[in-house]
């Protein structure tokens, strides 16, 4: 599988050549995120040290003077430490700052609870004027970083760490959920690194004669209201899948849409309002109920609860 940090560095270099106003800022995590590749443009690469609040504020100033700053560090520090700077210095004026958060969710598995970030979707989603994208694979990451640079306004990209799978060729469009399979028994709405698990879950369900409509909801904000409403209408039961707290994340976003437009039962796969812990990533996925088997079981529960409705 491709290395996330190498690919992130490569796409930034490519964009740096096209966009002379693109600048890259990090907080002493240039190597870990991969953005230090941008040192190839030394005058446009800033390592501001371990100071996330200053980093986001500096990005605001650069953006207000016409630059396109890409800020990158770990999700828990970027959003957790500098949330108010994102809100007050950047988003209120819709300044053109691009936030690329790596090491989200359980991806920094061995580092434990301080580094595993299960809150960033909720925190960014609650700030007006923001766009929030969670790429599921390499093609989506490349397309999302390009889209961020080419779309005006604050843009948040949620990434993991280590390797990133190759699932799709192309077809990424901001705000438009990707339909992976069509089905009528249950809808599965997944995002980020768990899209791969959801694809496996769909196969497991198909073997049991259950047809699932599976979508990759890479853009959590603005949400694809039309696609979600249609899936709810067509299947009558939904499972949401995310590597984030089920409170306020993708599950919450889908529930807001479905409960307003087409109320149907929803089962949520995600972190059940707890902090992380150190461990092997596959084992942590088991502990938190995030595997293909868990998704398939949740789909069957959703179908059963629809019948009770």
């Amino acid at each position, binding site marked *: 599988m491709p290395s996330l940090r190498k690919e992130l560095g490569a796409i930034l270099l490519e964009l740096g050549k096209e966009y002379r106003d693109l*600048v890259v800022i990090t907080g002493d995590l240039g190597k870990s995120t991969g953005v230090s590749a941008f040192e190839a443009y030394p*005058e*446009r690469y*800033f390592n*501001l*040290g371990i*100071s996330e*609040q*200053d*980093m*986001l*504020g*500096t*990005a*605001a*100033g*650069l*953006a*207000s*003077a*016409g*630059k396109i*700053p890409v800020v990158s560090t770990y999700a828990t520090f970027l959003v957790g430490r500098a949330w*108010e*700077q994102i809100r*007050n*210095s950047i988003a*209120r*004026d819709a300044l053109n700052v691009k936030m690329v958060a790596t090491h989200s969710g359980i991806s920094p598995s061995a580092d434990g609870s301080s580094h595993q970030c299960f809150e960033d979707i909720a925190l960014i989603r609650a700030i007006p004027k923001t766009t929030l994208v969670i790429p599921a694979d390499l093609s989506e990451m490349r397309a999302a970083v390009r889209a961020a640079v080419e779309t005006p306004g604050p843009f948040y990209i949620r990434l993991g760490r280590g390797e990133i799978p190759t699932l799709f060729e192309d077809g990424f469009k901001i705000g438009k959920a990707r339909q992976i399979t069509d089905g009528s028994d249950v809808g599965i709405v997944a995002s980020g690194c768990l899209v791969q698990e959801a694809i496996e879950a769909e196969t497991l369900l198909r073997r049991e004669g259950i047809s699932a409509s599976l979508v990759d909801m890479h853009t959590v904000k603005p949400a694809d209201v039309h696609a979600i409403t249609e899936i709810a209408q067509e299947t009558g039961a939904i499972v949401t899948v995310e590597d984030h707290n089920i409170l306020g994340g993708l599950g919450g976003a889908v529930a807001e849409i479905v409960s307003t437009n087409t109320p149907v039962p929803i089962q949520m796969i995600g972190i059940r309002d707890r902090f992380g812990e150190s461990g092997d990533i596959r084992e942590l996925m088991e502990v938190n109920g995030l595997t293909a088997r868990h998704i398939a079981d949740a789909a069957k529960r959703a179908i059963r609860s629809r019948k009770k409705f």
Partner: protein
Amino acid sequence: MIASAKSGHLGPSLSCVEVLVSLYFDRMNHRPKDPTWPDRDRLVLCKGHAAPALYATLARAGYFGHDMLLSLRKTGSALQGHPTLETSGVDASTGSLGQGLSIANGMALAARLDGRDYRVFALLGDGECDEGQIWEAAMTAGHLGLSNVTAIIDRNGVQSDDATERVKKKEPLDAKWRSFGWQVLEIDGHNFVQLHHSFDVAEWTTDRPTVIIARTVKGKGLSFLEGDANSHNASFTEEDLDWAMEELRYS
């Protein structure tokens, strides 16, 4: 303005009037008829609660009409309680303390990248120096040698609850900034000659940023408010207003 709005920060607005007047009428290169001119000097009002003083200065400079000033803090007004970019002449949205100096640094970096020679001024409160982000930003500007950044600290000695040294000791403030790589100047912040001269010195210095510690009096010009912590959030009765206007007329 503040009487009409029935709320606002009178004391900390009055302590920085001379600094703002000196900047907009003596120092800064700006065009009120072209407020987004890319080569303009910029001001970040880090102590955003002094918005009334900024708005009055901007109106006098010609960014908008004086009649607009009475709409301060009213529903639908472009004059928000704390500065936002909606107001012509405002260069950065502030209001949450501690965030402005980083923004000023970013603007200064953009000037450096674009080869433009505009300068960026950041007006800080002394109480605001409690915020950690100020020191992150101070370290950044010192490290990068951002000589096109000039910070002014409105050293009125009083913050929201009490005297600054009682809430959290700031002194030695000059030594702190010096050790972060800044040139430090200390002046009487109500004296236009000293302000003019210190801005000259900042402009002549090309290897590091300058901070001007401007010693001021909170509530300056109104004897019943001067130096009083209670003036931080003071608003006005009709009677106070008459008295204040009379005092300011003769000062």
